[in-house]
């Protein structure tokens, strides 16, 4: 489930010798980490779904190449199959494929920036709190 509870910032309750006070900006960093961490998992799921959808569409368009030109293709819309000509089926598939590809690209781009920001936040927070903080993936 994408909404699974993730606890990004769990505080070790061992009381280390050096006691670091939590400042407002630290709290903001921790909050941002929590948000982005959740968002990252959501996007990862969506990316996976989009990729498998793309594969299905790609398989379909490969199969269609082998089909007869003059036999209508049954294209699934919701719960019904519409009979479409091979050309328009091709067209629809290509359109869907490019849409899904666009989604994949934008997900990938967002993931990249999120991962960068997370790494940055991790460096900051571990630098300040050391072993007292545990930032889960």
């Amino acid at each position, binding site marked *: *489930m*994408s*909404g699974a*509870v993730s*606890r*990004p*910032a*769990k*505080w070790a*309750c061992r*009381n280390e010798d050096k*006691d670091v*006070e*939590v400042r*407002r900006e630290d*709290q903001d960093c*921790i*909050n941002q980490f*929590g*948000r982005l961490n*959740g*968002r990252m998992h*959501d996007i990862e799921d969506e990316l996976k779904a989009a990729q498998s959808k793309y594969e299905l569409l790609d398989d379909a368009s490969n199969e269609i190449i082998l089909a007869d030109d003059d036999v*209508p293709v*049954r*294209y699934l*819309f*919701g*719960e*019904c*199959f*519409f*009979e*479409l000509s091979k050309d*328009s089926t091709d067209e629809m598939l290509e359109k869907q494929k490019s849409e899904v590809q666009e989604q994949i690209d934008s997900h990938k781009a967002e993931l990249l920036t999120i991962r960068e920001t997370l790494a940055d936040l991790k460096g900051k927070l571990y630098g300040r709190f050391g072993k007292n903080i545990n930032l889960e993936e």
Partner: protein
Amino acid sequence: MAAPFTAEDAEASTKEAMPTAVFIEDIEAYMKKEGDPGTALDKLQKLYQVFKFIEQRLTQKKNKLKMKKPEIEKTYAALCAMEEQAKKGEPLVMHYELAQSVSAKAIVNVHESDKVCLWLGANVMLEYPRAEAIALLAQQLADCKKALATTIDDMGFLRDQITTTEVNMARVFNWDVKDRRIKKEKEEKIARGEAVDVE
């Protein structure tokens, strides 16, 4: 064909109705105000549970919207395909599921009639001119996407509140541990001091 209405889900953000977690600027002052660490923790724990409850509700809402979106998309795509076919001036040949694993062939005269029926839920089906139905579905799809974005944003806001509360609880807990240790050291010192005095 299903066209679930999304009006109720397009409602505005729930952010305003949510309680907010307040960052503890100064733990010493906070503990002085709260008095006993036990009660302070209890208070935070209660707030935490409220947040968890809201989180559950928002997750449910998100999942519902996520299920709805492809439904609307499917119907919308089907209507657009009908429109395309009508533009060609040909009837639409389709195979529909008559019963489980039994499909029947139907010829739909989309080029002659532009009426479609949308299933609105609650056992109501309404007939629309096709163009109107497409516009309605487009609107619903947009509403659904907007509601989904709002919900995700709300969940981000809630995440901040939860994280802040988690940190607050840990800080109160750590403060208590430290406080006890200091008190114990003091007592030990006094005990030792007294022992020395007696000797």
